[in-house]
């Protein structure tokens, strides 16, 4: 049934449908509403779980790790500094190959301090060994959270569901919250194959010498690559039940004759989709929604880029001193195969900077160049920076951000 819900409220209700036995909660904007809503569900007897309000994100991640190893389905959510604080645990969870689901309510990283949205936090833990799925809207966040449990428990890998902070978490949308029966049918009861049990004692998290470490990393890497099939299967099966797909690994939307593509992660997809309708006079454009960032769907990307002359990679994070993080991987993926679009790399919407519909027109303008320009952050107002940063007084020249 479709209800007008705030993203966080919808996520809390969805998590309840997945029946986690242990939930760790720690407040951080913009994730807080999720655990607050879970706490309300628990307080009102609508959700049966051990809700533990821990003393840090480090302990939130650790607590769900201990609980999962003891055999319980778990949930936690975090953002920004919280993701960074728990990053050591995130690597540990993935290395131990323990299934669990967490929501990252994407937010910028300090300094400078910003509570607003970008995706630097989840990008910072890109290499932790988690599956990362990005959601374009709140319905996708709901559907992806349910799918994430199935993917995680089948692959024995943790899944991070990335949901843009504020843009999604604090936005009211009509959302279909599935029936409990449907979720129960889709998601079997949790059973962790290596669960700790006094009747069958095992040791988890042992020391390995150089004789075994490479093998463990190899195994982990391939488990993530293999998870691609499970991500697709989970989405297909959910579509059969609910009638909705969340986009598999990489969803492409646009006319067959499109020569320009724009690749995004998360909610920017919605902005671009609306903008495309707003500017029908601009050249036909395909929108590529990168849903699975880890595992990285290189094959699907190469197929999606067939026929494109220009691919714009628009991301909400960067690697200072290099440029676009996702763009670098797109470059690498397209180094092989026959699809050879020119790749344009931009960061946008950093620290909550608004992304107007006009971005779509601006992007089309920016790619009218003989050679793709180097990576740039869009909408930088140089006049807001001190003169010392540039050695020129912008108030007396008409220099622009190029």
């Amino acid at each position, binding site marked *: 049934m479709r209800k007008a819900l705030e993203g966080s409220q919808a996520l809390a209700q969805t998590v309840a449908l997945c029946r986690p*036995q*242990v939930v*760790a909660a720690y407040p951080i904007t913009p994730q807080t509403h999720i655990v607050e809503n879970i706490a309300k569900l628990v307080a009102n007897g609508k959700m049966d*779980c*051990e809700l*533990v*309000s*821990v*003393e*840090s994100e*480090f*302990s*939130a991640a*650790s*607590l*769900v*790790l*201990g*609980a*999962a*190893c*003891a*055999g*319980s389905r*778990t949930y936690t959510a975090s953002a920004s500094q919280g993701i960074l604080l728990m990053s*050591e*645990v995130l690597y*540990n969870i993935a290395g*131990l190959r323990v299934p669990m689901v967490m929501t990252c309510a994407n937010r910028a990283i300090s300094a400078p301090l910003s509570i607003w949205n970008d995706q630097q936090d989840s990008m910072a833990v890109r290499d932790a060994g988690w599956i990362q799925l990005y959601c374009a809207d709140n319905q996708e966040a709901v559907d992806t959270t349910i799918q994430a449990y199935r993917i995680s428990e089948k692959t024995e890998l943790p899944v991070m569901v990335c949901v843009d902070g504020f843009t999604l978490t604090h936005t009211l949308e009509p959302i279909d919250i599935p029936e409990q029966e449907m979720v129960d049918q889709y998601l079997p009861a949790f059973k962790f194959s290596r669960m*700790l*049990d*006094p009747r*069958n*004692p*095992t*040791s*988890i*998290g*042992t*020391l*390995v*010498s150089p004789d*075994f470490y490479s093998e463990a990393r190899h195994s982990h890497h391939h488990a993530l690559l293999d998870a691609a099939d499970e991500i697709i299967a989970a989405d297909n099966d959910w579509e059969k039940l609910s009638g909705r797909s969340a986009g598999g690994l990489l969803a492409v939307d646009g006319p067959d004759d499109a020569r320009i593509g724009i690749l995004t992660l998360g909610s920017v997809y919605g902005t671009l989709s609306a903008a495309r309708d707003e500017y029908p006079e601009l050249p036909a454009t395909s929108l590529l929604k990168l849903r699975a960032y880890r595992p990285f769907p290189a094959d699907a990307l190469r197929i999606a880029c067939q026929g494109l002359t220009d691919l714009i990679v628009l991301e909400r994070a960067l690697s200072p001193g290099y440029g676009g993080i996702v763009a670098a991987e797109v470059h690498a993926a397209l180094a092989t195969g026959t699809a050879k679009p020119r790749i344009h790399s931009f960061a946008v919407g950093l620290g909550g900077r608004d992304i107007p519909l006009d971005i779509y027109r601006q992007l089309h303008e920016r790619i009218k160049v003989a050679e793709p320009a180097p990576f740039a952050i869009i909408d930088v107002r140089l006049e807001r920076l001190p003169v010392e940063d540039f050695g020129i007084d912008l108030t007396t020249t008409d220099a622009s951000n190029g």
Partner: protein
Amino acid sequence: MNSKNVPVTIEELRRKQPRFEGIESGHRACLGCGEALAARLVTEASGPDVMIANATGCLEIFTTPWPESSWRLPWMHSLFENTGAIAAGMESALKAQGKNTKVLAFGGDGATFDIGFQALSGMLERGHNVLYVCFDNEAYMNTGIQRSSSTPHAAMTTTSPPGSERMGKRHLKKDILSIVAAHHIPYAATSSVAYPSDIRMKVRRAMEIEGPTFLQIHSPCPLGWGHDGADSIKVARLAVQTGLFPIIELERSVLIGSMPIRHPKPVIDYLGLQQRFRHLFNKKDSRAIEELVHIQALADHNIKHYNLRGEGVDTMDSDGADTVRRGGMRWA
């Protein structure tokens, strides 16, 4: 052993000896490792229906070199600083599943006093049903003897070396038991590997309590303290007999018991056995005697503060409690 002096039969002793060992022999601890012995004694007393969260450290390293493991218990190591939270998570899961398996958390002094202190405090505050055992060997031994907040005053470590400007560690040993007890948990106690029956008794007591409990076990490290491996028990016993390591019990932060010292020994008896204090015995260094006086004063303070001076002969005092034979029986 002269059985004529023993008020029980050999059969009875055999029957009463522990039947369960949670840690198998063959692990890679150093000779005379106090921590290995203490951990074995804890698991003997806890029995098999437990689940262990173990912090990074010697105990984790020497028991689980993949693909081997010494543990006969479900055991998990995650990280250095999160053992309290891992244990809390296990306990929450077991509670949700309706199981009564007791969760044990094991950490060294670095993992407990320092880096894992926050997670421990959170676990205690939230009342998780976990017995947290700190194997206190008074420095970061696994990384090669660096000072921790548990290292006693004036001890030499690689990061608190004595020299022309320093006499070993400048600061005092952190009073972790008081801090832990200040969470008003049901039970917090100290013990020592020199007193196996005391460890067993306290573990059994903690096992019966529903809620967070804490046990700090003084565990000599021959390598880090610089004494012969064969002297571990002697050294541990002297720490108690001098008053430097009081054996006490607190319930809801109130002192309810202590092990009386029958014949208090001077601290030099304890310090003199250990290389980590050798700079205090340099007769040409006037600072040395000053530090010895200081350390004796710390011991005297403990004896007074916890009222440790025994009266006469007591089977439970510092001389009686260690004449324990197998099975946890005691006699003076």
